[in-house]
């Protein structure tokens, strides 16, 4: 009886150890993969928002010291005097300017609109904390093209992703 136990126990321990090692490896791979998904998603989110906002901009302002890109838009508000579908004589069409800003401070990208608090777009994800290592907007006034380079690093997998893109701003006046 003791002999059988003496053979079975080390076998069992070895098997359990192997199982635990494989399980830990799978858990680790899953963690890395999740962190990479978060990293990709955040880069894509920031760039697609930025491009979408840039397309219709009237002016583009870029600051180098704290990487910032700001867009302004010309919008109008109509003050109605009569209850009608069409614009009547007494109605006032007032020009309004709207501003949207993307700022990179302290390893994060923040988005700012008028009258709203500054919102972080990246970082603070439980599954994959990320940090911005490079955010470089460049605007070419002659061709009206905005070049954007964004590099981010995952603090969990230590993987880096760097994406450069450009957007043509047809209505830009600056």
């Amino acid at each position, binding site marked *: 009886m003791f002999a059988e136990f003496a053979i079975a126990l080390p076998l069992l321990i070895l098997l359990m150890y*192997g199982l635990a090692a494989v399980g830990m490896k799978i858990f680790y791979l899953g963690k890395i993969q999740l962190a990479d998904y978060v990293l990709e998603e955040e880069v894509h989110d920031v760039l697609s928002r930025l491009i979408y906002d840039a397309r219709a901009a009237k002016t583009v302002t870029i600051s180098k010291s704290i990487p910032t890109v700001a867009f302004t838009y010309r919008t109008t508000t109509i003050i109605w005097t009569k209850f009608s579908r069409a614009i009547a004589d007494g109605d006032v069409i007032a020009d309004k300017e709207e501003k949207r800003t993307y700022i990179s401070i302290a390893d994060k990208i923040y988005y700012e609109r008028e009258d709203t608090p500054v919102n972080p777009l990246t970082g603070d994800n439980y599954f994959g904390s990320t940090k911005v290592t490079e955010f470089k907007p460049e605007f070419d006034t002659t061709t009206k093209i905005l070049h954007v380079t964004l590099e981010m690093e995952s603090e969990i997998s230590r993987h880096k992703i760097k994406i450069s893109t450009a957007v043509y701003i047809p209505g830009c006046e600056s």
Partner: protein
Amino acid sequence: MNRIDNERGFMLLNVVFLTLITSFAAMILMNAAPRLKNPQAALRLTAIHLANEQFAMMESKAAAGTLDLSCQVKPEDLTTKNFSEGVPINFTVTSNEKSSNGNLHTVAVEVAWTVNGQDASVKLERTIRVVTD
């Protein structure tokens, strides 16, 4: 009294079950490993943004009156190390005109790359208006 002869079968069964579980775990592991080594998704994202860059360049020139189909992406943007374990990957950008209607031209941009001997590509289309006086 408990006899070890009765428990021998259970012990064998345990060994069989544990082996099965371990092999299943190994199978899952084998499936996960190539996905980490071959991160096509991140490269596809890079390629889509490269195609957008090419479109932006073409639109800018089209606003001045010419449709330029050559590769106009910045040369430093054509090489990436995204998720590729430090191995740089080169993209090639080719664009051709698919159809045109008046001064509206439909252009297809194809961005291609190779990872671990596998070819992959992304193809995007956009209609561009060439401004003529």
